[in-house]
Every structure is written in C-alpha cells, then in structure tokens.
C-alpha cells in the first residue's frame, strides 16, 4: 500500500508523456498574394514537437512515360518515398539529388524496379533522372502534416491542430516572394479570418 502514491505518480507521468495532445482547433483564412504567385503550401510549425506521435508514411512516385508522377511530393520528416519504374517498355531510370537536405544517388533502375529512401531533415529537395533530360521532381519535407497545398486558390483551412503556440507560414513557389509568418495560439476554438501576406523579398 505504501507504493500507491508512487504508482499514481508514475501512471500520471506515463499518461502525460504518451497520450497525444488534444486535437483542439483549426485555423482558416485567406492568402493575400500578388497574381504572380499561383502555387504555395500553407503550413504550421510548433516548438512543441507535436508530430512525435505521427506514424511515418510511405509515398509512391511512379516513373512512367519518362516523367516522375507526381512531380511534386509533400511529405513529413521520417516519411519515406518509394520510386517505382512503371514504364511499359524497357526504359531505365536513375534518381539522384544534390540538394543539401539529402544528397543521394539511387543508381539505375530497370522496368519493374523499386527504390526507397526516408527523409530525416526538413527542407526542399530537387531530384533528377540522370538519363532523361525532362525528368525532374521536387519533394517538400515538412515537420508535420498540418499543411494545405494551394493552387490558384487563396482560401485555406487547417483542422485537427493540437493546443499550443504555432507559426503559420508558407512555401512560396515563386522565389521573388515570401510569406510573412503569423504567430497563432491554438485553444479549443477555431481561429478564423487569418490573413497571410505574401510579400516581395
């Protein structure tokens, strides 16, 4: 019976450490961007390391008709990508990247081959096939899955955000521009009508 307080303490500690944070709120609003900015990724980051409970996923990129499909992939750190050579004819492909976030050369893959690689750092990665000149792709590696990909659209809404202090930011594909990050505090209510400004660098 003397151990009961310690047991309770340990039980509370385990609960605190391993129970995922409450999915509390959401943010929504509009992007204020000039017409040149046609595509961007709105994302949220937090210092609370809230993605620790998220299970890594595997994303498939097909090599078909001498193209990477899709050419843009948005993944989370520790996710992996599997490149599959799905050509209908005997066409070999290579996959390599010199981006500092992850440099690699996966060698030459024949029709039917599969290469997999995981990504441990956030950032933007450009990769190519050294054989075919039009084959290139891009991977955006984000710290969590709280993002939205906007193409020719300005309205955003991101749900299922755990409580805490967050920063709303954007990957802007037109490099003349950048987002002005916004600090938001997520509680149980929804934060509406945020305005994320895209400005010239």
């Amino acid at each position, binding site marked *: 019976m003397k151990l009961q307080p310690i047991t309770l303490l340990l039980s509370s500690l385990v609960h605190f450490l391993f129970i995922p944070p409450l999915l509390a709120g959401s943010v929504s609003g509009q992007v204020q961007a000039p017409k040149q900015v046609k595509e961007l990724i709105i994302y949220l980051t937090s210092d609370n390391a809230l993605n620790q409970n998220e299970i890594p996923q595997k994303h498939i990129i097909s090599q078909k008709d001498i193209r990477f499909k899709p050419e843009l992939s948005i993944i989370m750190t520790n996710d992996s990508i599997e490149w599959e050579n799905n050509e209908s004819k005997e066409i070999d492909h290579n996959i390599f990247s010199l981006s500092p976030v992850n440099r690699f050369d*996966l060698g030459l893959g024949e029709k039917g081959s599969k290469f997999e690689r995981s990504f441990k750092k956030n950032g933007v990665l450009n990769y190519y096939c050294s054989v*075919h000149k039009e084959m290139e792709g891009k991977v955006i590696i984000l710290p969590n899955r709280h993002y939205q990909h906007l193409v020719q659209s300005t309205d955003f809404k991101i749900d299922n955000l755990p409580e805490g202090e967050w920063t709303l930011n954007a990957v802007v594909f037109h*490099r003349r521009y950048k987002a002005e990050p916004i600090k938001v505090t997520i509680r149980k209510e929804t934060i509406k009508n945020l305005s994320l400004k895209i400005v010239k660098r």
Partner: protein
Amino acid sequence: MKYLFLLTALLLFSCTHTPEIIVDKGAVFGVLSSDAHPSFTNKIRDKSSSADDYRDENSQGVIYHDNMVNYSQLNELYVGLVLPYYTPREHHLFAEPEKMSPSSLALSSGDMLKIQNNTSSTQHFFISDIEGEGFQSFPELQAGQNAYFTVNIEGNLELLSEDNDALKVVLFSKKNMLTKKLFSGQRYQFENLPPDSYQLIFWYWRLGKIEKTIRIEAQKNIRVDETLTVDSVMRSYHGCVINRTIDCK
C-alpha cells in the same frame, strides 16, 4: 575503322599541348568531359543486357535518344579557378520570349551581367539562392533594351524573371573565380599563375560540382583532367558514402 578512331585519338592527344613555360610562374591545364551514369554505360557495354535501343554496335558507345541527356554533346560545362586577385569580368545573357541564353553560367561574385531583353515586355530580373536565403533584385529592364547588373552574392543561384517563368539561368557564383565555358571533351588552361595553392572547380548545373585543391609550382605545368558524372560528383563530397541506406552528410 578502329585504326581511324585510334588515329583521331592520337591527333587529338597531340593537340593537347602544354602551356608555355613562364619564369617564376606555373599553369594548370586539362580536359573536361561529362558522361552518363557509370551503371548506364556499364549496361551498354554488357551485350547480354537488355539495352539494344541504346547501344551503338559499331562504337560500343551510347546512342542518345532525343529525350535523353546527351553527355557527349553538352556545351555548358564550366571550369573555374579561384584566384587570390581578380578583376571583375562581363558575361552576356540574352532574354528571348521562351528562354534565356545561355541557360547556365559560372562566374565570380562582383562580375557583371549584360542582359539583352529580346522579349516584348519589361522584365524584372532577380537572383535567388537555391539552397539558402541569398537574394538580389535588379532594376527593371524594358523590352529591347540591355543593361549591366553586378552579381553580389555567392552560391548555387538562379537568375529569374518576376514576369516570365520561362526566363531562367542557373548560376554558380564564387568570389574571385575565373571561369571558362567548355563543351564536353574540350581542353582548358589557366596559365601565368604565381606558385601557390588554388581551388579548381568543375561544374555542370544538373550534375553539380567537383572541387580540387591544386599546387602550382614555378616553371611547371600540371595536368588535371576530369569527367563529370553523377557518380564522380557524389564521390567528391568528402566523407560521403553513397548507397541506398546511408545518408550523405
């Protein structure tokens, strides 16, 4: 046919003459080439492999199809030598309606770009670091006009137009880097160099760069040949182990 190739090779080799010896000075020279991925060229050589569409039965070399990177025909390879002293140079770029020419350029920070705007509209050019925050914008350039712009930042960069996505030049900029543009298999030389250690850089925009430190000695010419491939560039990153499981730092 084989003897003809041998004779051609001998003639080409004899043309790779060494630079003139200058008292108290040295030189570096060599040939810069590019080639397909070694796994690809090995497959072409292996007659039992399923690569007939890509194998030239006469030369045993690669047949490059239109959709392939033809490494034997690349004409925008660069060699750069980082000097202790440097006088800024001028590079000419042409903005056409659908593309920039040339499409890549290695240069020194402090060099000037003379851009000729052959499009029908005003362009607002800027330079952006591909891997970092480096950024530089230039004043507007009206249609039909040309202007000089000085590049002030270093790194792996892109010159882009705010107004036309098709206008893009991949840049590699490094302080005090004297550069030469070459086609694959072309000879280069840097001469009249005071004895010292120098950084020699070989670059192709899609494959990246190989850096070497060379030692120039008085009244000596050193030869440094290099072939840019995915494999050789990856190996040049010091301490980098390339395979499917180990990260390359």
